[in-house]
């Protein structure tokens, strides 16, 4: 059996909310010189937030571990702690060997410097020695495919060239442990294939890799072990397929409960290719029509689609009134959305007026709704996958 290369015990990370973190000088002076020298402030307006709580794990040499979880589950914080960027609040991690982190490609690139100079600069920032960089220089240039622009300042590069060069430098890092956070969403298709191939080589070469991604396909192909992080704790660790399955199952439901008002509960989840939205209501009088309207927004709040029953010409209505208390179930069939987090703005009312209106009240994480290969992000190609038929002659 291979050796343990990473061992984490009781790792927690506490963030203070309410203040931006760096107190003002005035605040510190108010607290006295002691806190100024201690380098921290403790004001009453702070709220504790545990980004990570009691994380324990062991990773053996050569394991490729995929870390999955929703946005805000603590994935990036865990990687930051592991790669020594930020200190844990409690606990201890033992690493056997050098750790290199690819939390973002192109860190430290300077626009005024040429491609050649940036390879050396970025390489040393990532922890390579000049000798190492010189040895790999040709390989890096080859991989990036920008040989003819090597002596041009990178500010004149297209964004594709920039990213290719940046990834090429990072991909040639040699360390026992490699930490990667979603670098695959870069470049054109051909280059993405190259990146995936390179990652595969790294994974197969016996190096230990920690990989965070929302791309379940990539996680499943590259990794053999998985962690499922939820609210700062590891909910499950085990074989990657089991971890991904549990994650997919759990992340499809989002619910909000209201203590008072006309609406008592809103629930939404992904059911295969469909989105289900359920709303429980409890009104003061009987209703002419339980009128539920929705708008589905992207994560920036831009509307993607929306409807209410009044907009449907052939709506069948009950004769008389609807009871005070009841449920509306809405099935949005096959909206064909790309992976990502979406939010619902909900409106609820009668024909005569509205009882409830809330923007972005529930969110839903869509995962693998269609069977297309998701090569680009929604910001690049839009949110909805069209029904297409390509004919070649």
């Amino acid at each position, binding site marked *: 059996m291979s050796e343990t290369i990473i061992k984490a015990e009781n790792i927690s990370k506490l*963030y203070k909310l309410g203040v*931006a*973190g*760096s*107190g*003002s*000088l*005035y605040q*510190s002076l108010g607290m006295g010189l002691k806190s100024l*020298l*201690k*380098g*921290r402030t403790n004001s009453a307006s702070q709220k504790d937030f545990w980004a990570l709580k009691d994380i324990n794990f062991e990773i053996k040499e050569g394991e490729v571990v995929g870390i999955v979880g929703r946005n805000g589950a603590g994935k990036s914080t865990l990687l*930051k*702690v*592991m*790669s*020594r*960027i*930020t*200190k*844990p*609040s*409690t*606990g*201890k*991690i*033992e*690493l*056997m*060997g*050098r*750790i290199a*982190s690819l*939390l*973002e490609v192109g*860190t*430290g690139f*300077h626009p*005024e*410097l040429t491609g050649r*100079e940036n390879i*050396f*600069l970025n390489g*040393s*920032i*990532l*922890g390579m*020695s*000049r000798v190492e960089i010189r040895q790999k220089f040709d390989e890096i240039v080859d991989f990036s495919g920008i040989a003819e622009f090597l002596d041009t*300042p990178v500010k004149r590069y297209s964004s594709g060239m920039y990213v290719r060069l940046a990834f090429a430098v990072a991909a040639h890092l040699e360390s*026992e442990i490699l930490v990667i956070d979603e670098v695959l969403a870069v470049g054109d298709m051909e280059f993405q294939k190259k990146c995936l191939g390179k990652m595969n080589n790294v994974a197969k070469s016996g190096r230990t890799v920690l990989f965070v991604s929302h791309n379940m396909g990539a996680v499943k192909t590259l990794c053999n072990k998985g962690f499922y992080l939820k609210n700062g704790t590891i909910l499950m660790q085990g074989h990657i397929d089991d971890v991904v399955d549990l994650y997919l199952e759990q992340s499809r439901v989002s619910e909000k409960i209201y203590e008072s008002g006309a609406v008592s509960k809103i629930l939404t989840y992904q059911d295969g290719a469909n989105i289900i939205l359920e709303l429980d209501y409890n009104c003061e009088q009987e209703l002419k029509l339980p009128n539920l309207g929705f708008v589905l927004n992207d994560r920036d709040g831009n509307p993607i689609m929306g409807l209410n029953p009044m907009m449907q010409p052939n709506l069948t209505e009950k004769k008389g009134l609807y009871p005070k208390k009841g449920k509306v179930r809405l099935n949005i069939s096959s909206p064909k959305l790309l992976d990502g987090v979406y939010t619902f703005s909900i409106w609820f009312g009668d024909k005569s007026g509205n009882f409830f209106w809330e923007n972005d009240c529930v969110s839903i994480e869509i995962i693998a709704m269609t069977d297309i290969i998701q090569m680009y992000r929604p910001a690049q190609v839009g949110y909805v996958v069209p029904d297409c038929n390509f004919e070649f002659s």
Partner: protein
Amino acid sequence: MKKIIIEPRSNPFKINFSELYSYRELLSALAYRDLRVRYAQTFIGFLWAFMNPIFSLLILTFVFGIVAKVNLSPGYNGQEIPHLLYTIVGLAGWTYFSEVFAQAGSSIISAQQMVQKIYFPRLVIPLSKAITGLVDLAVNFILITILLIIFGYKPSPNIVFLPLFITIAVLSGLAAGIWMSALTIRYRDFQYITPMLLRIGMFITPISYPSAAVPEQYRMFFYLNPITGIVEGLRWCILGGEALNPYTYISFVIIIILLLLGVLYFNKVEKIMPDII
């Protein structure tokens, strides 16, 4: 294989010099970047490095030498010291310090993307500014040499002590840079305090006037400004003249203490740096 242990809090007095040394290539890469980028796309390019000190030299000499007519005591071998020469030597010590002070102060804020994405000893960032500043110091020494030749001034034999005083100047730059970078990241107020301090420092440092012009009762406070000692020391090395005021050595002690405390404070802030940027 190297074993790394990550723990919440390590001893603030423990400074990992061997790690810092292993990042020396990053240090030179960052310094190179700063120099390379500094005059990019300017018409006269590196000549700008001479423009700034020349204009400071002219304006200071005009104010103190021509308008205020400050009296200078004779230098080595009783030679009369031309005011331009007197000022440029003072300026050399001041420019290096003030450059590092200003550049290092904002250095970590401008490198925040790096700090949040990659681990390396953060001390490398302000240290690289202390290296970049050496170029400005060299420019000043070129100007000094030119003026020595033009005025036919014979340098004092004290010049053998020059390396010592340059070392102290570098230490002062380091001390200031380390303090300012840690303070600025912790309290952004220092972004506004820094230029203010520099403006004050420019006048309370005897760049273009002798400290003898300062009344005796203020002299003690005057030497609390660590740059005073450096400026006077450099002048004594190159131009000679009266022996150094014993207060000068207080400046040097202050610099060493500030440097040590600065490294400790930086070490302290370094741990929370990515969280408070």
